């Protein structure tokens, strides 16, 4: 099924999320422009990866999709409902349709609740009153994430489980309401290498089985190939490249994407013998980002007079959509 045949589940339209800075809690001191003009569509059952370094705005974007932040400008449309404008009961119903898998498996589980309680919480909140029904769904979720037999785990507390097992509980909790969309924020970066693939494979299996859309947020490019159809690269609040995963890996267009590819190593002894060509500097401040293209101070291919003056719009280049003047 190609993109054009599947319906759009989530549509981000020119989204801006700005946080107000206040000095002494009173006077206005500018905005942190965490998300500054992001547009994309996500289809039913599609997996995308959002790749970017810290400070690029991916966390704020994610929280806005989850309904925790409100958009400053632009819209987040979920099945024709504008998420930024709903509240109360409607918001609660929306939240039942989005599952959230977090980065820190131990931190994501309340340490004073046992596994059964943890998994029941979303059900209780969403108003499922029958205890037998809740029990059934909890057990089903445990089996889906292969924490079997469930009775071995239900009465335990998070600190009694290994990292991998904790993350499985987090995933179980995310899917227990049978959502249509899963947002996974660095779901394996705090796990050991030998366990990462296991969890990613589990997620992928669940995604295929239930045809859930997944937004996989990471800074580790090496896993995106494994898990996503399309990759969106984010830098300083903007999406600089949107492309299918193969295009990103073999034919990256934006200089930042190329830098990320260059910096992501596959294990190879020869790595120790070469220096990597990398852009100097740091990601810019989100309060006063550079004029024009935000990457221009670090870009090896900057066009003076253009890149430092005008912000590039999106251009098509082969299979990718790039925000870079090089592809005018």
């Amino acid at each position, binding site marked *: 099924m190609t993109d054009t045949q599947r319906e759009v589940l989530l549509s981000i339209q020119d989204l801006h999320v700005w946080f107000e800075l206040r000095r002494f809690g009173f006077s206005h001191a500018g905005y942190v422009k965490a998300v500054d003009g992001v547009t994309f569509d996500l289809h039913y059952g599609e997996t995308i990866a959002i790749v970017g370094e810290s400070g690029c705005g991916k966390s704020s974007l994610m929280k806005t999709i989850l309904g925790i932040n409100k958009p400053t400008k632009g819209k987040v449309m979920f099945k024709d409902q504008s998420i930024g404008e709903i509240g109360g009961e409607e918001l609660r119903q929306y939240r039942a349709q989005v599952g959230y898998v977090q980065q820190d498996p131990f931190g994501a589980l309340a340490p004073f609740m046992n596994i059964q309680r943890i998994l029941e919480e979303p059900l209780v909140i969403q108003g499922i009153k029958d205890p037998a029904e809740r029990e059934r769904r909890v057990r089903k979720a445990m089996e889906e994430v292969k924490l079997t037999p469930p009775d071995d785990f239900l009465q335990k507390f998070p600190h009694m489980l290994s990292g991998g097992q904790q993350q499985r509980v987090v995933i179980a909790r995310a899917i227990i309401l049978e959502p249509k969309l899963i947002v996974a924020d660095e779901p394996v970066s705090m796990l050991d290498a*030998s*366990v990462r693939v296991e969890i990613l494979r589990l997620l992928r299996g669940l995604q295929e089985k239930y045809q859930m859309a997944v937004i996989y947020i990471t800074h580790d490019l*090496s896993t995106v190939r494994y898990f996503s159809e399309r990759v969106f690269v984010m830098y300083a609040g903007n999406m600089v490249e949107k492309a299918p995963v193969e295009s990103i890996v073999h034919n990256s267009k934006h200089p930042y994407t190329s830098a990320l590819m260059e910096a992501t190593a*596959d294990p190879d002894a020869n790595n120790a013998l070469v220096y990597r060509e990398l*852009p100097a500097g*740091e990601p810019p401040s989100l309060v006063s980002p550079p004029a024009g293209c935000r990457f221009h101070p670090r870009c090896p291919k900057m066009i003076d007079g253009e890149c430092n003056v005008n912000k590039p719009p999106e251009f098509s280049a082969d299979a990718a959509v790039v925000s870079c003047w090089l592809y005018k």
Partner: protein
Amino acid sequence: MASDKLLSIQDLVLHFKTQRGPVQAVDGVFFDLGYKEAVVVLGESGCGKSSLAKALLRLLPRNVSRYDGKVYLEGQEIMGMDEEQYRQNVRWVRMSLVPQAAMNSLNPVMKVGDQVAEPMMAHHGVKKEEALIQAAKMFQHVGVPVDFLDRYAFELSGGMRQRVAIAMSLVTAPALVVLDEPTSALDVLTQANIFNVLKRLKKELEVSFVLITHDIATSSELADRVAVMYAGQIVEVSDAHRFFNEPLHPYSRMLMASVPRLRADVEPDFITGQPPSLLNPPTGCRFADRCPKRFAKCSEEPPVFNIDGIQVKCWLYNG
């Protein structure tokens, strides 16, 4: 006991006393390291590698139940030294440490320049002005602008702070620097930049590194030699080329197989089960439970076999 080796560790042991019994965090670690070389100690969580860093630098907590072994630094045995000798001659003089999350452990109320200068003043009795000059030199080596000497830690980004921590470990010109997970909290680009710095330091300052990490991909950026740690023990010591191409120990193989590859079209694998607890390690080979190649002999602890310069602790390589 080759004296042309910078560092030679034999049978290093560090056990802790806890409420639930002795934790055998480091239980027979061995490897060698030459001058201007970097060895990477690869291990996952629970293998005892953070305790290894403490053991190497004798930064021991109060509840140690056993600490012995032989460590030869530039030909001289240092485990037998008493506390004061060690402090004056080894720690931060010939061997220093960049601890885990070093960038978060910088003193927030001291200027970074002063912090980097401090080891010089403490260990070499150098005056502040001179120490600051040395600190400035280190800043240049790690790629931090010299005018950052007067800044405070919170004014610097994560990558800059990590470079400052590295500078602090180098300021007394040690022969060996131990790095404990130096880039685990940093972004990809910053991480790659730090490794560029480390590569350059290895060449220009002729300093050797012991890099302790779980990140297999980035470890190949610096490694000349690789030591794999599992459940408190070293199971394989090899040179980088041979290791990254074809490791010998089953654990090493499965570990390499679990790394997702960006450029190759290979489906990565994973290892079922969990590492054994360091509280009560099993007798026999500690990896036997999870090893697909285990056989009867594995219930006995294997010795270390030497296969053409590679040391493997596995019965598969018997004879």
